């Protein structure tokens, strides 16, 4: 019974991961690749991890699996958001068949958002030393 | 398996040296890092590798019940990795500072200290 559950979960999980892989390979622009991969992979990994939890079938493993899933759910979207934003600022073009771009012109030519405050010293002002 | 790993280690050594032989500061550091990885893997390989048997004594047991992989090379590599990290961090900063002060990135232009004065 456990074996079958594990097998099913793992299969589903790897399938979603495969999906993400195909996505990143096929999609025509950076944003699409990102949009496709984050979730598919997250779901896939979640399923595989659950499979492992089922397989080991003890409290400490389960809590660890839960922890990993929570971490991934927390970090994956944040990461995707960061790269997405960064690549938009870096000037990566949208796919030519895109229908709209509400962000167009929201960032200055220099790339920094209008009025955005400085954090970890974005510009590298080399001191003249 | 070992033969592939050995080739990989050779590749790391070769790539490391090749990068060090370039004229760019950044490549130099990357080369050093690759070499370090090669050396660590070499210790690992020559300490003999085993699959699926981490050197952790199972719960409830006082010693290993089945095969285990050699913990000593692992400990050595761990030490080596951490030390390399320290050195690499310093190297990265050194390069940054050197680049800033010497105002060139071409290693070939950094040869004033070898000239006679």
């Amino acid at each position: 019974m456990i074996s079958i559950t594990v097998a099913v979960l793992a299969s589903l999980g790897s399938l979603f991961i495969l999906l993400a892989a195909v996505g990143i390979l096929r999609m025509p622009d950076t944003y699409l690749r990102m949009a496709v991969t984050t979730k598919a992979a997250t779901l896939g990994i979640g399923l595989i991890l659950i499979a492992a939890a089922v397989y080991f079938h003890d409290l400490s493993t389960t809590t660890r699996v839960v922890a990993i899933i929570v971490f991934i759910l927390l970090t994956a979207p944040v990461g995707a958001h960061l790269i997405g934003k960064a690549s938009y600022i870096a000037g990566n073009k949208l796919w030519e068949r895109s229908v709209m771009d509400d962000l167009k012109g929201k960032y200055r030519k220099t790339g920094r958002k209008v009025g955005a405050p400085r954090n970890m010293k974005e510009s590298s002002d080399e001191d003249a030393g | 398996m070992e033969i592939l790993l050995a080739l990989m280690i050779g590749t790391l050594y070769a790539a490391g040296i090749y990068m060090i032989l370039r004229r760019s500061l950044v490549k130099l550091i990357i080369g050093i890092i690759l070499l370090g990885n090669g050396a660590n893997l070499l210790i690992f390989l020559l300490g003999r590798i085993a699959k699926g048997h981490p050197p952790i004594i199972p719960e409830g047991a006082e010693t290993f019940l089945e095969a285990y992989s050699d913990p000593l090379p692992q400990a050595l590599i761990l030490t080596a990795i951490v030390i390399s990290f320290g050195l690499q961090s310093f190297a990265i900063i050194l390069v940054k500072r050197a680049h800033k002060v010497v105002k060139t990135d071409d290693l070939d232009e950094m040869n004033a200290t070898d000239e006679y004065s």
Partner: protein
Amino acid sequence: MTLNEFLYFIILPVLSLSILMVFFRFVKGPTISDRVVAVDLLVTIGIGVIAVYSILTHQHTFLDIALILALIGFLGTVAYSFYIQKRKNK
């Protein structure tokens, strides 16, 4: 077919294939963002591989590594995007 065989002959190959595809994207780029996305995904798949491997070898210890990967891999992504943005700002 035992569970182990199933994992070994079906699941791991699928994951490996995915890794190869993602790696191809990594090599191909074309932008640095694509590469970073690819690396991010590689790490994620790596977590899956480790999870499967831990079942294969009956070593739940390996899940701890998966945990670390999940936590820290993220930071790499943050750093890269930080850099991509910073470079643009220069």
